[in-house]
């Protein structure tokens, strides 16, 4: 890594790691609270505050800063040149960090207990909305720098395809730029003026539509960098080769096209949106399963290549030959296993009829802890074990903890997620401080499983603590060593030297925008034509 880009990546990585640490502590509080243990700090105010802090720090801060760090690494190391516009990139970092601090201050002072979905007319302190917006603005600058890195390289390499890792990162940036239009509109036109008192009321349903326009592609913003690791890093570290480069390119392009026009599947139970438009989004939602099916095959096949390269024979021997003791490999393999279950759950959520059974129940938190909480978070932790030594020139400290940590996460997530899926099916709502409902017999049946969930939370917290110890130990006291190279997986068959249809980012962005317009322009226009009544703000926290 050139020192200059390396420092930029490291600065982003540390914010991600610290946000993860704080968010994990918040999660422990929630897990224990749900088990109804009589702890001195336990109160509804602290519980809902900690849910808000956990969601915001994990879903928005940890992910965004980690992806920005990884994006800079990918841009520099696949192209072999320092990223351009470094002053601007640093400005983006400071803007995002300042925004994060404003948002966190608003949450921790108890003035923004609106959860990370911040549905109005719950009204937070303006610092919450302005801070979150600045985080997004900082990420836009990052996206601009990544695109400029690619364009500068492309001018000197006309007609060549981008290296695969960068291809995936460009897809991530494009998805993010399209997605954040929704949240920017929600913040700038609705929530910020309203929280500042410039407007009296807000349309809660319009805000929900804009939020979920952003909220679903947000999950692909989390997932695509993890896929970059699965396709472009994992096969190399596991000792194999990427099974198919063109299919990997296809997968990322499909995500550019299909990520956004699907947001209504989060709003199946909402009034004010006609069923026909919900159905349209439901159909596209199923379409987006396809690239993940392909990913499951290609990545598994790449692992088989690795196992066979180490002399495995027979049908499943290659699984045993994989380096399960390597923290990156173990993290990614376990995250893939959990994601397979989470993906099936996602198909269930997308099914129009079944959604009514699970909507806003504990099933949902069980589901997304397998996706963003495992596929993304566990992959990112594994990636951090690989990346931090390479960025700092230090050896990984406390290596044993790093080896154990992914397995603890896996066990914790299995306990947490299975119990929440079941209590969800039994009708337990998500995000509740106390699940007793005045001694209701139905609610009593959830007990026991809520305790299993809390035990899962303890495993997860222990795992997170191990991760933090390894990161801080490495960063502060790791032995200086010769810099290790950052290497990308080679494809099994040589990549075509000519850029093809799947490398035409402008074209696919246009296709994506057209599809977004079809899916959203008409329902939004219809919505704005209705007689609507605004809602004043409420701060019941």
């Amino acid at each position, binding site marked *: 890594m050139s020192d200059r880009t390396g420092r930029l990546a490291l600065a982003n990585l540390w914010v991600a790691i610290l946000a993860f640490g704080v968010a994990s502590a918040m999660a422990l509080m929630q897990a224990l609270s749900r088990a109804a243990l009589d702890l001195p700090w336990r109160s509804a105010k602290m519980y809902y505050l900690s849910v808000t802090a956990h969601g915001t720090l994990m879903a928005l801060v940890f992910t965004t800063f980690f992806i920005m760090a990884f994006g800079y690494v990918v841009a520099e190391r696949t192209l072999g040149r320092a990223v351009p516009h470094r002053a601007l990139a640093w400005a983006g970092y400071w803007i995002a960090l300042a925004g994060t601090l404003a948002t966190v201050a608003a949450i921790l002072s108890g003035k923004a207990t609106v959860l990370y979905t911040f549905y109005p007319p719950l009204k937070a302190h303006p610092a919450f909305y302005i801070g979150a917006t600045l985080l997004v603005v900082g990420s836009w600058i990052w996206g601009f720098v990544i695109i400029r890195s690619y364009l500068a390289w492309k001018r000197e390499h006309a007609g060549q395809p981008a290296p695969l890792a960068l291809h995936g990162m460009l897809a991530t940036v494009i998805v993010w730029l399209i997605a954040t239009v929704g949240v920017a509109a929600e913040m700038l036109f609705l929530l910020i003026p309203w929280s500042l008192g410039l407007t009296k009321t807000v349309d809660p349903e319009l805000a929900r539509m804009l939020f979920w326009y952003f909220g679903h592609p947000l999950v692909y913003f989390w997932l695509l960098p993890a896929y970059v690791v699965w396709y472009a890093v994992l096969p190399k570290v596991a000792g194999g080769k990427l099974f198919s480069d063109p299919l990997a390119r296809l997968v990322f392009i499909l995500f550019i096209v299909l990520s956004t026009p699907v947001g209504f599947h989060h709003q199946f139970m909402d*009034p*004010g*949106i006609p069923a026909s438009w919900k159905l349209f989004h439901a159909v596209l939602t199923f379409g987006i399963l396809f690239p993940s*099916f392909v990913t499951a095959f290609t990545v598994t096949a790449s692992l088989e290549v690795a196992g066979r390269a180490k002399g495995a024979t027979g049908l499943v021997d290659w699984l045993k030959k994989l380096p399960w003791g390597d923290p990156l490999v173990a993290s990614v393999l376990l995250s893939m296993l959990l994601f397979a279950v989470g993906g099936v759950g996602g198909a269930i959520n997308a099914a*129009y009829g079944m959604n009514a059974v699970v*909507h806003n129940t504990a099933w949902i938190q069980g589901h997304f802890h397998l996706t963003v909480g495992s596929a993304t978070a566990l992959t990112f932790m594994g990636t951090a074990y690989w990346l931090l030594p390479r960025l700092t020139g230090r050896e990984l400290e406390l290596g044993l903890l790093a080896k154990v940590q992914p397995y603890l996460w896996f066990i914790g997530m299995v306990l947490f997620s299975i119990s929440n899926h079941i209590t969800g099916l039994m009708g337990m709502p998500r*995000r509740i401080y106390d699940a007793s409902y005045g001694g209701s017999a*139905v609610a009593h049946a959830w007990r026991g499983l809520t305790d299993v969930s809390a035990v899962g939370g303890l495993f997860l917290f222990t795992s997170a603590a191990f991760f933090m110890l390894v990161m801080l130990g490495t960063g502060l006291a790791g032995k200086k060593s010769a810099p290790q190279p950052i290497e990308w997986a080679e494809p099994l068959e040589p990549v075509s030297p000519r850029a093809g249809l799947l490398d035409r980012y402008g074209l696919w962005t246009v296709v994506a925008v057209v599809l977004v317009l079809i899916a959203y322009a008409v329902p939004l226009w219809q919505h704005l034509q209705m007689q609507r009544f605004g809602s004043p703000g409420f701060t019941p926290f």
Partner: protein
Amino acid sequence: MNVPLYEKIWMWAAGGIIAAFIAIVLVTGVGGALQPPSHVETIDPTQVFKDPRFAHPAVTVDANGATVVAFGMMYGFTPAEIRVPAGKRVTFRMTSTDVTHGFLIVGTNANTMLVPGYVSQFTTVFQRPGEYLIVCNEYCGLGHHLMSAKLIVEEAKP
């Protein structure tokens, strides 16, 4: 694009599964048997108590079934106890007087958001008589976990 045979088989199978999922959703959705609550009707959320549609939250039963008019507010539902006949069509018409709430009848697929400014409406049939727990399933403030009500499904009178 040169795709190996096994992966081709896999991709066709994945495509087939997805096509089946979509077909099921389309058939049940377009057929009308399975529609999520998607009623489009607006209301002034600051005037719910005065609005003739919600001034008298109650259950009315007629020969065809029942209509439930109810609203959610921090932290309860009005009426707090809802009695409906079993085996008959029951139409719920609901809204919120303050923040966004959820309405879930535990053990059923009766589930809808109550968004201020909008009227939620759906129709369902309860086959099994008995007492059901209704919960708010959208965070609505520090008393969110206290927000519940009771649904009593009564044996239909002959």
